[in-house]
């Protein structure tokens, strides 16, 4: 018990998000609103990449916050707050996926012609091997990368998102996904290899990306 107390104290001192959550636990006015404002975009980004549908992503993100609120009195910091938050998010997304599998929706094959067929950028990706013969603009490249990410399996996708955008260590990803760090290592290695294959033709094109992306990439590199 003493060690739990020490762990809680350690994370409370180190992680400002833990301190905010402790204020939520104490029912401090405005604390929960601050928490929602601080995490909504990050949570939404993860949910959007996990489930694809923007509306469903918002619903799930709301449900995550609701669960955080409901279980606030049982909150005892054992790790970074974001690890706890994304663990809840992953559980909810998994449940939603399972519900969808139980009630499958029939989809028309995407490679058919017609209004449901692939959009031009998706065709570029489906070709895979050769690089496009024209330089893609930022939005086109964004779509291609998004489609490539969507082709990874859900576990790989989550590991990639948490690693890339949440800057989570393998240990933290393992906690969120309830798997071993060895499994995370293997997931990320395979995911990166697959992405490399899917985006092979576009890597060369990205010599001088738009300024925004360059800045982000540099930030990522320095981190």
């Amino acid at each position, binding site marked *: 018990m003493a060690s739990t107390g020490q762990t809680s104290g350690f994370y409370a001192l180190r992680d400002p998000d833990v301190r905010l959550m402790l204020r939520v636990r104490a029912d401090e006015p405005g604390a929960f609103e601050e928490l929602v404002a601080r995490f909504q975009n990050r949570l939404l980004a993860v949910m959007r990449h996990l489930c694809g549908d923007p509306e469903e992503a918002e619903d799930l*993100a709301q449900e995550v916050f609701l669960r955080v609120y409901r279980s606030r009195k049982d909150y005892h910091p054992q790790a970074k707050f974001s690890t706890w938050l994304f663990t809840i998010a992953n559980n909810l997304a998994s449940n939603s996926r399972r519900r969808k599998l139980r009630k499958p929706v029939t989809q028309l094959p995407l490679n058919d012609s017609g209004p449901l067929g692939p959009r031009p950028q998706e065709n570029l990706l489906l070709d895979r091997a050769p690089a496009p013969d024209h330089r893609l603009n930022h939005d086109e490249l964004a779509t291609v990368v998004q489609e490539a990410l969507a082709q990874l399996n859900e576990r790989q996708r989550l590991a990639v998102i948490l690693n890339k955008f949440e800057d989570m260590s393998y240990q933290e990803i393992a906690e969120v996904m309830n798997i071993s760090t060895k499994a995370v290592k293997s997931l990320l290695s395979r995911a990166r290899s697959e992405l490399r294959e899917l985006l092979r033709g576009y890597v060369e094109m990205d010599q001088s990306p738009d300024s925004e992306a360059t800045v982000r990439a540099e930030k990522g590199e320095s981190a």
Partner: protein
Amino acid sequence: MSDRDTLSPEDREALVQYLDGELDEEASRIFEARLASNPTLRREAETLKRTWELLDYLPRPTASETFTSRTLEKVETCRIKARRRSRVLRWVGGAAWAAALAAAAVVGFLTVQPPLPPEPFEPTPEDIRIYEHREYWHYYEKVDSLEFLKALERERLFTEDT
């Protein structure tokens, strides 16, 4: 054979770990030495790094303007429901206590209540007849059997003029 074929899955895992900053200091030093001496590994590292950087093009969705207010509304609804539920639970709990107390009172009352008085003795006509013939009671002392006396009575041995 392509460059890719010359790297083992372990090499790839180690490379990804290195790029993610997951190798400790000693392992990083060893891996950097390998990178310096192996152009295939270096090329692979560069490709993986640039692929990873492409993810920066991914759109960063932002919550709709009403997201915070809708979320807080949901939380408020949840809070009201919880309060209502706790009030109902308190009421149900109180009612259960009251019912339990009432049951205990009934059980207690039944337990300590004095026994009911015995039913008043209703002699049969035969008994009355035997009673009326008090002078023959001493026979009862002799025979010590009411049944026998009753049999005598049935034989009309105890008539008015006996």
